[in-house]
């Protein structure tokens, strides 16, 4: 019989704590929540889509609680804006969840969620690659064209927020609803979409956007986890070990931001997201054509890529410490 701790098989415990450590380090370094690698990893390991999404959302909730505790003293949360996002995203998450369960009844939920992840990881990975390869210097005011067009809609009522900006109530609720649907459908926190939406479309100052993002993800993550848990789709034997590893990793990653230039690692990170996309695709092909080799390849791709990129961050940090160098990069948002 396999050795167990608190009813969890030791192999699973070590695997998830280790993977959590990798994810926490990666996303602590890059300032993201890390959720959008957890659900695909669970899919690749053979969990059904509702457990993968539900447990992913519970993980989002746990990590955002820790991030919120670290941000609470900085006064960078706009509660009015956060509340609008919570209302919109809560409705969106419910719609996303209903869609997943409806697809499950049709018997295609695993396929649709997996294919959505193949697309999401590929698009985000390619955009990061393009960004890393671009010779142009980063420009905080370099708004995407779509953001400029959306931002032009000043639909009243307008609400004043911290930092002197004014945002449209309806535009804010619309953005929150859209990201909420994605969050409920894929089990992601949505921070990687919400941050640019807040800064570029609504004109929220960056510091307030980070604080408000963490605040609202805590609330919407709790709601998302609760709504999936009602259907028994949150597996604590997955969530707690992942959280244990990632909370430690987030501290290592955040510490590394002071030692390593993010631009040096961005291409590796983009490659890792593309490997994640290929892993989920490979898993589905493996299942469809009953090819065990493809299933094993998917596991090697997703965990191997995370290990290589985390190793690159830790290696660069150690080199930097030995050389006595530091870089002036902002603290990670978790």
């Amino acid at each position, binding site marked *: 019989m396999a050795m167990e701790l608190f009813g969890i098989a030791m192999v699973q415990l070590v695997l998830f704590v280790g993977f959590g450590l990798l994810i926490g380090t990666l996303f602590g370094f890059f300032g993201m929540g890390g959720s959008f690698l957890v659900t695909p990893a669970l899919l690749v390991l053979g969990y059904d889509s509702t457990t993968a999404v539900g447990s992913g959302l*519970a993980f989002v*909730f*746990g*990590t955002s*609680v*820790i991030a919120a*505790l*670290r941000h609470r003293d900085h006064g960078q949360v706009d509660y009015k804006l956060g509340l609008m996002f919570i209302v919109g995203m809560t409705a969106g998450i419910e719609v996303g969840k209903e869609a997943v369960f409806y697809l499950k009844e049709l018997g295609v939920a695993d396929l649709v969620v997996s294919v959505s992840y193949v697309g999401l990881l590929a698009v985000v990975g390619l955009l990061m690659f393009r960004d890393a390869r671009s010779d142009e210097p980063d420009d905080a005011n370099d708004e995407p064209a779509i953001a400029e067009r959306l931002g032009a809609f000043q639909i009243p009522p307008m609400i004043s927020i911290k930092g002197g900006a004014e945002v449209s109530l309806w535009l804010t609720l619309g953005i929150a609803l859209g990201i909420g649907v994605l969050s409920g459908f894929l089990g992601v926190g949505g921070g990687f979409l919400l941050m640019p939406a807040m800064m570029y479309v609504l004109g929220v100052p960056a510091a307030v956007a980070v604080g408000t993002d963490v605040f609202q993800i805590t609330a919407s993550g*709790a709601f998302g*986890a*609760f*709504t999936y*848990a*009602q*259907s*028994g789709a*949150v597996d*604590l034997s997955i*969530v*707690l070990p992942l*959280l*244990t590893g990632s*909370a*430690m990793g987030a*501290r290592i990653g955040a*510490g590394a931001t002071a030692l390593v230039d993010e631009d040096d690692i961005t291409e590796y990170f983009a490659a890792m997201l593309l490997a994640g996309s290929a892993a989920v695709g490979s898993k589905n092909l493996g299942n469809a054509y009953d090819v065990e080799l493809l299933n094993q390849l998917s596991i090697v791709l997703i965990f191997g890529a995370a290990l290589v990129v985390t190793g690159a961050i830790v290696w660069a940090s*150690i080199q930097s*410490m*030995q050389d*006595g160098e530091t870089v002036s990069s902002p603290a990670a948002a978790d």
Partner: protein
Amino acid sequence: MLGIESFGATGQALTDVGVVLAGAIVLYVVYGAVTSLLGGKIRQTVGGE
């Protein structure tokens, strides 16, 4: 175990979310203490200071 499970699915869901919340707070406190205790030592060891 907590009695809340008797409320059915909602009670179980509240328990699950509560366990994640409690776990996150414990991890924040424990790792905060570990980081402040060991952070300087690790930097000294690796950096050769």
